[in-house]
């Protein structure tokens, strides 16, 4: 049953992808991109990847769509109907596709329990996690502890993107924000219904974000998803009430602080572990009981991740929104 569903979604996905390439209206393309992300998320869910599905939905369908729209607002939404070096590209692409398809034979069967992927490293995680870390969500365990170093790097990737956008588009909004920009920023304040509904929703969105943040050990979720969701809530607020109000609540400096602080919290935990005589990011030394230490460490770093992601996404959003058209 789920299999058929999966095939159905995949087919839809391919159709969407082709549509994305074909359409010349960038606005449409962005929207379709959001749909594609949702389809992919659904697929992930079918493939037992709850966390990834959540993230893809929040980040791929949510944040990135917002960013694209922001960019479109500052550029033009229509693409000139020229495709350069069409033939060459087609040849390259077709050739590469064939190579890939050629590579697919010999691949272990889909979902084969005896494939190397299933038999080599992952069983260790599944069987040792209760003993070492003892939290239900193995994904969070791997993410936070076994491969915590990757996650640290990931936080700093986000951080880099954040300072990059601020570096390019200027840290302080309002700079060069002209008449038009202000109109946009005034948001939908004059439209009663969206405001009322939005105000109703925003607290719940943020609440849900916090739930995702702190429930990450037990169910799908964690810092990234939470950060994305909370950021989405605040972006919604900014859309409703306008840039100014949003920035009054969370000034740019504060957001920058969040960006830096998130990374520092994460790294700081690692350093503390080092000081306490463990290896970098070896949480078990944080508490007399290694398991408790691990859990504590994961909660701390997840908090760091959440803060960093929220701060970064909001800074990026504001940087775009503050731009003159």
């Amino acid at each position, binding site marked *: 049953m789920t299999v058929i569903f999966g095939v159905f979604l995949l087919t839809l996905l391919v159709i969407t992808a082709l549509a994305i390439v074909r359409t010349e*209206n960038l606005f449409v393309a962005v929207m379709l991109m959001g749909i594609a992300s949702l389809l992919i998320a659904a697929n992930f869910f079918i493939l037992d990847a709850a966390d990834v599905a959540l993230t893809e939905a929040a980040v791929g369908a949510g944040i990135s769509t917002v960013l694209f729209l922001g960019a479109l607002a500052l550029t033009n939404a229509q693409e000139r109907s020229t495709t350069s070096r069409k033939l060459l590209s087609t040849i390259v692409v077709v050739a590469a596709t064939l190579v890939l398809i050629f590579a697919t034979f010999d691949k272990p069967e889909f979902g084969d329990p005896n494939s190397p992927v299933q038999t080599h490293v992952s069983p260790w995680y599944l069987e040792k996690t209760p003993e070492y870390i003892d939290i239900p969500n193995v994904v969070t365990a791997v993410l936070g502890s076994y491969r915590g170093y990757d996650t640290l790097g990931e936080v700093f990737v986000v951080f880099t993107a954040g300072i990059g956008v601020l570096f390019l588009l200027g840290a302080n909004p309002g700079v060069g924000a002209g008449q038009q920009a202000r109109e946009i920023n005034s948001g*939908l304040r004059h*439209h009663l*219904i*969206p405001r009322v509904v*939005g105000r*109703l*929703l925003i607290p719940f969105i943020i609440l849900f974000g916090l739930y995702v943040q702190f429930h990450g050990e037990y169910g799908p979720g964690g810092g990234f998803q939470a950060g994305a969701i909370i950021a989405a809530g605040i972006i919604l607020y900014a859309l409703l009430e306008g840039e100014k109000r949003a920035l009054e609540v969370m000034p740019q400096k504060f957001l920058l602080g969040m960006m830096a602080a998130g990374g520092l919290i994460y790294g700081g935990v690692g350093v503390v572990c080092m000081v306490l005589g463990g290896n970098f990011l070896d949480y078990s030394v944080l508490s007399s009981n290694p398991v408790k230490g691990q859990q504590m460490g994961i909660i701390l770093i997840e908090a760091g991740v959440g803060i960093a992601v929220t701060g970064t996404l909001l800074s990026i959003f504001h940087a775009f929104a503050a731009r003159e058209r």
Partner: protein
Amino acid sequence: MAMFLDVLSWILLTLGGISVLIGGLGALRMPDLYTRMHAASVTDSLGAILVLTGAMLQAGLTLATIKLAAILLFLLLTSPTSSYALASAALIAGTKPLSEREQPEGGKQ
């Protein structure tokens, strides 16, 4: 009794599916933006209500039902709002309703 609930839920599910389908058709076939939105939004809300109630009947009195109820509430709040926002945005952007135009053509938003 359970039998009856099951049948009922299936009826609801089917009706919901049909209405969503109609909505989809309308969104495709209607002449301009506003009519399309009309078709889509109305049937969407209806479809959502029907489908979710059906699902709730399937689930019975469990945590799932409560979640579904929450989702339903959420949908009932958001989907009309969004269609309102879209319509007003279109109006600001200057898309005239069909009635005020001569020859019919699809508003492309």
